[in-house]
């Protein structure tokens, strides 16, 4: 069906079903209905979507909520999917990932009585939309500290998926962490960063991820690898495992994929953002605006203790304190975040 056809159909659906359900104004309902629109990788990605769903599961343990879960719609049907949830009575509609930013912008005006939670993207200026971003650079800073401390050869690597600002932030934070740890430890640590590709397919190419990791291992002598590359990261972990070296996972606790190889993992805590939003909704204190989830408010962290040496854990504690107190800054300015300047300058 053509794009136009779908839009027409969506309009038709909206106009026939209507959104004429009596709108509950401020007082939140007793048992809130939560609609969640998943990102393209879907339920079971052990990353983003599962993370958000975990938050819903945790929220529903505290008190009953009704959950309406929807897989990612076709690219031109986002608006229709949101309208469907609004019509089905969702008090809060959660969008997992930046793809929902634009659709939420228009839908928020169409459904002023609904609340929206946008995860991992920016969207400001709408009273009923809360946009949550995660400081991946802060979490990656800790990953960099762990890598520098665990590296025997004082050489660490980073494998990114698609070369874009979001992933550059991972690299930049990692690099800063490596440099910070090198200073603390009083030794030189070299870092190397590579990317799988320049298109979204770069997140789904594990064989190339493995090849890149092998290159870093054999050619550069890297012995700890951090991958922010989606499914391509599985190849990086396999290469580290085959070479009996260490890897740092991402998105979820990936230690089960290769016990002994994956020493810790960096997570964006989408679950906490979801849990907080549901709790706010229940307390009728849900506010729109932008929220930055960072180390200080539990928005990003390393899976600890992990298989890390005690000295590494101590250093991580110091790094965490330094970050929270503002004594260490990972990629403070956005332009700094997207600037490729690995390996560390002397």
């Amino acid at each position, binding site marked *: 069906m053509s794009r136009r056809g779908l839009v027409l159909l969506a309009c038709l659906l909206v106009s026939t079903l209507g959104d004429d359900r009596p709108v509950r104004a401020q007082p939140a309902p007793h048992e809130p209905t939560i609609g969640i629109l998943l990102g393209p990788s879907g*339920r079971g990605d052990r990353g983003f979507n599962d993370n958000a769903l975990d938050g819903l599961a945790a929220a529903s343990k505290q008190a009953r909520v009704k959950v309406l879960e929807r897989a990612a719609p076709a690219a031109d049907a986002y608006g229709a999917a949101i309208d469907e949830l609004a019509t089905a009575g969702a008090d809060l509609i959660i969008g997992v990932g930046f793809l929902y930013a634009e659709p939420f912008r228009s839908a928020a005006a169409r459904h002023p009585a609904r609340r929206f939670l946008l995860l991992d993207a920016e969207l400001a200026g709408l009273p009923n939309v809360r946009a949550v971003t995660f400081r991946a650079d802060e979490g990656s800073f800790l990953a960099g500290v762990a890598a520098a401390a665990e590296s025997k050869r004082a050489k660490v690597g980073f494998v990114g998926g698609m070369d874009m600002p979001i992933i550059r932030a991972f690299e930049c934070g990692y690099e800063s962490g490596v440099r910070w740890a090198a200073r603390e430890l009083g030794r030189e640590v070299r870092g*190397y960063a*590579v990317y799988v590709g320049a298109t979204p397919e770069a997140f*789904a190419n594990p064989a190339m991820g*493995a*090849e890149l990791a092998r290159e870093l291992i054999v050619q550069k002598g890297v012995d700890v690898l951090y991958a922010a590359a989606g499914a391509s990261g599985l190849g990086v972990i396999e290469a580290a495992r085959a070479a009996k070296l260490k890897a740092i996972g991402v998105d979820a606790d990936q230690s089960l994929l290769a016990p002994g190889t994956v020493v810790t993992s960096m997570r964006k805590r989408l679950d906490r953002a979801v849990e907080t939003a549901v709790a706010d909704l229940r307390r009728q204190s849900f506010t729109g605006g932008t929220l930055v989830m960072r180390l200080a408010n539990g928005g990003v962290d390393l899976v600890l203790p992990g298989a890390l040496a005690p000295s590494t854990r101590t250093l991580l504690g110091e790094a965490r304190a330094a970050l929270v107190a503002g004594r260490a800054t990972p990629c403070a300015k956005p332009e700094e975040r997207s600037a490729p300047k690995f390996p560390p300058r002397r």
Partner: protein
Amino acid sequence: MIEDILAASVRIGTPLLFAALGGLLSERAGVFAVGLEGMMLAGAFAGVIATWLTSSLGLGLVASAAGGMALALVVVIATQRYGADQMVTGLAVNILALGLTSFLLRGFGARGEAPVLRVPTLAPWPIPWLADLPVLGAVLFRQPPLTYAGIVLALGVAVWLARTRAGLTLRAAGENPYAVFAGGTDPVRVRALAIVACGAIAGLGGAVLSLQQVGTFTDGMTNGRGYIALAAIIVGRWRPMAALAACVVFGAADALQLRVQGFRLPVSSYVIQMTPYLVALAVLAGVGRSARLPAAIGVPLLRERK
């Protein structure tokens, strides 16, 4: 450094080589092998599932070949039984494989989740003596088993096509199927067998990715390699050893691109990452002029039914 790049070229070229050899059999018999991508993906998937269930890499390899063959059978039925367009069927099979493997994978997870099924990988087998040779040792003789198998297979296919009666019949099915018929052999059957063989070999190409390089299956993990293999067939002008060389060249383009990233050139990474494809385009443009397709490729053959 050179030795490393060459070794990486061979590694990256190996999955391409299997797919190209399979596709070459199919195309020499007169059937476009557009479905290579899907056959590879089906093979990669079946291999991981079988290895995960039986913890035997050997059975995994058998399953990979079978997975590719299963998809090839779809092509056989559509194109040879019902005369469907070869190009369209191939594309359809690719899309089918992408959807079906992703769907079936979720059948192995709880609550419809896509599990990461970790399986052991085929470790490198250094060949005694030869592995210690300078340069060549690292490039050719410290590779995992499927890489050796691919090289042997290329030699085998080359000899078989050129020197045996069966190979001649296969080539005739792609050049002049009516002559095959006149010679007392059913060209439709020849083509069907060629497609099935193509599926088995391309399936093993998928196993190179999933069982030799990564040790798990992820959605769409072939990532367009089937199409690159198609290009390798054309660059190699439908000859096995030339296709092998083309696969290594494509592998080298990728291997170089990976290394160039490390030099921190003041060039956008997008430009660097497009170079392998520019190389492919340039080579195709150069070779394309002199390339000659098998005369009867794409020509549907239908038996008259009574």
